[in-house]
């Protein structure tokens, strides 16, 4: 690589902004966000006074970081995976392979778009929660650590999304099975109940994966310190969380470009045409 292809990167940023705007102008997408907002507000109101057993800990307080992690998973991991799989089928990726530095621009575009969608998805939870959940920001500046943790989450999960989108060919499988796997991981990894309730061997498996640690890290900065008793080991392990997420980020950032290049190399007009014929037959 001789020079940074600035023009392609700028084109990619612009592409991401236009894609984001197009998304905002699509009624079905807006309906999805509106539905999410209504669901969050309803849940916050219904469970407002509920507590976990006799401990007195608020259920809503515990769930909130998990909800944030879930939103990040969907927007930053599931999103790019489905976009990539869909756009390999419809020929968007092929168009970019025929441009100078096209893939860089393309990946930049998806990244920008997914980051913006993640911000929207997080605000949908955080804004109503700020009004409806008592004491959410009571820890003051510590809660601001949410921002770097979200950035680390993006670094850990977005490359995984790109990997899934490059490895699996069928966009309907990625959006269907992908969502199932995501839900199982999200629920299993203790985003919505304490992981400590699961058998020990399952805990170990799930603690190798990054999902638990994203939830744990967010809880550690958003929940009162004494709620650590609900965690595995009954303590906050922010450093461990940052470490595991960091390792996943590095793994993803190393693997994703290679896999993306491989799938881009395999694109050609006749491959896209064959997929098109197959898709038309399904319709």
């Amino acid at each position, binding site marked *: 690589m001789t020079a940074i*292809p*600035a*023009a*392609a990167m*700028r*084109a990619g940023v*612009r*592409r991401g902004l*236009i894609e984001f705007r*197009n998304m905002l*102008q*699509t009624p079905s997408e807006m309906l999805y966000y509106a539905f999410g907002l209504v669901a969050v507000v309803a849940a916050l109101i219904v469970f407002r006074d509920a507590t976990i057993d006799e401990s007195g800990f608020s259920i809503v307080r515990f769930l909130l970081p998990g909800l944030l992690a879930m939103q990040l998973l969907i927007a930053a991991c599931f999103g790019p995976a489905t976009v990539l799989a869909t*756009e390999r089928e*419809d*020929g*968007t990726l*092929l*168009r970019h*392979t*025929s*441009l*100078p*530095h*096209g893939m860089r*621009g393309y990946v930049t575009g998806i990244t920008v778009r997914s980051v913006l969608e993640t911000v929207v998805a997080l605000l949908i939870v955080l804004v109503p929660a700020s009004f409806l959940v008592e004491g959410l920001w009571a820890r003051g500046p510590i809660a601001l650590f949410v921002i770097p943790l979200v950035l680390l989450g993006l670094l850990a999960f977005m490359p995984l999304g790109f990997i899934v989108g490059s490895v699996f060919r069928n966009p309907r499988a990625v959006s269907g099975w992908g969502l199932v796997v995501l839900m199982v991981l999200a629920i299993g990894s203790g985003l919505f109940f304490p992981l400590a309730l699961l058998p020990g061997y399952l805990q170990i498996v799930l603690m190798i994966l990054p999902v638990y640690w994203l939830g744990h890290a967010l809880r550690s900065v958003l929940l009162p310190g004494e709620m650590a008793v609900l965690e595995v080991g009954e303590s906050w392990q922010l450093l461990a969380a940052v470490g595991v997420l960091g390792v996943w980020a590095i793994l993803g950032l190393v693997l994703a470009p290679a896999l993306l290049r491989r799938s881009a190399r395999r*694109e*050609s*007009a*006749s491959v*896209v*045409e064959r997929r*098109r014929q197959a898709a038309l037959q399904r319709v």
Partner: protein
Amino acid sequence: MSDETVIEVADLTMSYGATAVLRGIDFEVRRGEVVALLGPNGAGKSTTVEILEGFRAPSGGTVRVLGHDPLTGDEEWRSRIGVVLQSWRDHGRWRVRELIDIFSRFYASPSRPAFDVDELLERVGLADHARSRVRTLSGGQRRRLDVAIGIVGRPEVLFLDEPTAGFDPAVRREFHELVHDLTDLEGATVLLTTHDLSEAERLADRILILDDGVIVADGSPDELARRVAGSSEVRWLQDGQRHVHATADPTAFVRELLAGNGDAVTELEIVRASLEDTYLAMVHKSEAGALAATAADAATKGVLR
């Protein structure tokens, strides 16, 4: 047109497993030429173009486009090549002008600036649709958008794979005019594939006929017409009986025929095989081959079952 060779293909072969698609192809294209790769479906046209575009690795032979192997062509090389892809449902939410604009931004070389987007919209006849969403365009408009995207970087070499497949005649004519415009004004070298002879005759300076992975004819439309005119049929009636004779030199044959038999010959007819006849015969042959293969395949399966 200059003497500079921009596309060189030597002994190009391509196989998918045991199936040979290209069996040793040689040709060259000079700067500014418009060359049509003509052949029936399955002749290997698209495979050839995809190899030249760098999207596929050939099984054997050498290929050079603008002096580079397309497989290892760098981004600078890429910026000198134009590929017109068929839009299907990609970028449906995008507005026409924005889409052409975003692709033009990848070509930021000061020495060879990309097309001005509005000028290009005008050129391909989409100025009135600049703000339309891509999914609302008709098939012909979409195709013009594809061309605009393919040429926005002012490519030196432009590849068009089956550019008018699925067009109605009016849209096809419009498209032909657009290609003429481009080559006249920009001096681009164009390689297009088609299975439509009349399209090849209209657009190309030179036609390469590809059949079953081999180039069976190479020349200008006129040259090819003259070459196949070699075989003509002479038909006549003599003593109440019909006669047919195929010959390379019908004039000489008829001179002798009339000199020898005189008044007995009536209803004399000479039918020249046109380029179209030859080409159609070729297409039929390969389609019959495909049918036979399918039948044989079915028979084998029947036996196995």
